[in-house]
């Protein structure tokens, strides 16, 4: 019922987490709400996977608190786990056919919809009679994504879902994730390949070593910032971030006229990583 209220499905307060003495996440404050597809971005080693692991209950917080659907993930209660599906970057599937995999795994997910699973596999052009261990890495990933979406869990976590997929595969994954999304669900997609998230996410979270440096809905970002290609040198002086392209410069600037424009995620990401304080002041002041 999180989609009916404004309560975050995932509530992170002053969370610190790491491996032994090495803290990967420090004093993190975040909330993830139902009805959104979040893009979790950050450089390698900034803790994206650690954050997803912690939300899934695979790692325990060292400090702070974490509440996911009113559960403490570290307890790994069955009722919590059956409403969450995590697709990690590295995964292993048993040497069985897809049909058999469905038969023995779907029983654990009460909201699993076999028709949806068939539909997703059809879109990916994968037969259910195929043996999982005989499929390529990309195909196995597509099966797992199909299963995760068909499980209809309230929370779906995807860690680098487009890694290992070809161009067509990436596009299919985006379409299927967007197609399987409902207001009752919250999807968090972590990636360091920013372009892969375009036309999929509606909220962006960028983290770095210091914590969250951007956490905004794309609609709000589009109101505040403009992304354009400019040939005018004066535009560069007023830009938040710019980089040369084949002709002219790609720039991120303040959206002075308030007209919504298409967000270039890669530029947004670069601007945020280079100018974190400026971006913070734009969105929070």
């Amino acid at each position, binding site marked *: 019922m999180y989609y009916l209220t404004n309560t975050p499905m995932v509530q992170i307060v002053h969370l610190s987490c790491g491996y032994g003495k090495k803290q990967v996440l420090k004093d993190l404050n975040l909330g993830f709400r139902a009805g959104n597809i979040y893009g979790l971005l950050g450089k390698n080693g900034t803790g994206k996977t650690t954050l997803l*692991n912690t939300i*899934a*209950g*695979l*790692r*325990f917080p060292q400090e702070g608190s974490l509440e996911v659907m009113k559960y403490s993930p570290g307890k*790994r*209660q*069955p*009722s919590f*786990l*059956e409403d*969450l599906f*995590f697709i*990690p970057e*590295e*995964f*292993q599937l*048993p*040497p*069985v056919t897809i049909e*058999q995999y469905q038969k*023995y*795994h779907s*029983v*654990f*997910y009460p909201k699993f919809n076999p028709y949806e699973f068939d539909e997703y596999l059809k879109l990916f052009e994968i037969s259910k009679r195929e043996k999982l261990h005989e499929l390529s890495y990309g195909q196995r990933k597509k099966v797992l994504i199909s299963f995760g979406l068909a499980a209809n869990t309230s929370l779906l976590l995807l860690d680098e879902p487009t890694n290992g997929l070809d161009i067509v595969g990436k596009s299919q994954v985006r379409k299927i994730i967007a197609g399987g999304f409902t207001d009752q669900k919250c999807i968090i997609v972590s990636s360091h390949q920013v372009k892969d998230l375009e036309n999929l996410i509606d909220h962006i979270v960028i983290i770095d070593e210091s914590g969250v440096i951007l956490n905004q809905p794309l609609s709000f970002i589009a109101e505040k910032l403009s992304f354009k290609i400019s040939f005018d040198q004066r535009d560069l002086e007023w830009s938040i971030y710019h980089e040369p392209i084949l002709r002219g410069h790609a720039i991120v600037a303040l959206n002075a006229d308030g007209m919504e424009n298409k967000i270039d995620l890669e530029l947004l990401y670069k601007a945020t990583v280079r100018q974190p304080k400026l971006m913070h002041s734009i969105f929070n002041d």
Partner: protein
Amino acid sequence: MIMSELINFKRLTAVLGKNWFEYRKTYFLFFLSVAIFLAGWFIFVLVVIGNRFSMSPMDQSSLYFIGLYISGCLSGSFLYQDYTTKPRTQNFLTLPASAFEKLSSILFYGVLIFFIVYNLIYFVTDWAAVKIAGKIFSPAWQQSRGIAEPYMRFEVANPMSLNAERSIFYAGDNLDLLAAFFPIQSCFILGALYFSKNSIVKTIIFVFALLFAFLTLETRILLPSMPMGTMEAKVFSAYIIPDADGNEMIVAHPAWIRDAVAFAARFLFAPAIWVACYFRIKEKQI
């Protein structure tokens, strides 16, 4: 915690079904290798060592326990080594079932099914070996070799027999050997859950280190602090102190101490290690 979060029969059967379905080939290959090991051993005994005592009760029970310990400890380590790789651990930990149900599945296949199937395999191979030995080393064979001693006919050492005379465990020490097996096998299961790499080697080192620590405690601390003497052969039963005249003073422990220790060794050590396994599953992180 709500009871259904700890155990739910439907979920437990789903976990058992999933485990069987995914690992049935591994189980089959494992038990096949156990059968080959036992059959190979019997063939070796009959062909290479081959004499009229080849299938003595002692030989049969020795092989039973050697096979049980080796395959039991290997199964404890190898069959659950999967949980030491990161992707498999992720699957295992995020599977919507309680730690108790996951552990039950491990113990069901690793301890109960293993023990039943091992006994069946042993009985079949031992039965065949004893029958073959009976045919080869017959009275006629003895006569042809000029062996004058009376012919000794050996029975199949049936591990499932409740008849004390025919059961492999009828001798008291054998029963203790069987009782010791379950805690040791459980140590290997715990090792597979605890160590992320080379669990079998680390578990062997750990078990020997524990044994070494126990012996050091006994020989270096406990015995030097006691009057000169020796322990009774039966552990925890009595301590014998000889005096200058050659007489012996026996300090007997109350019988309940030995009974309690024997009871703990037979029935409590293994469950205690299973409890440790349960908490290990609960606290496991990747």
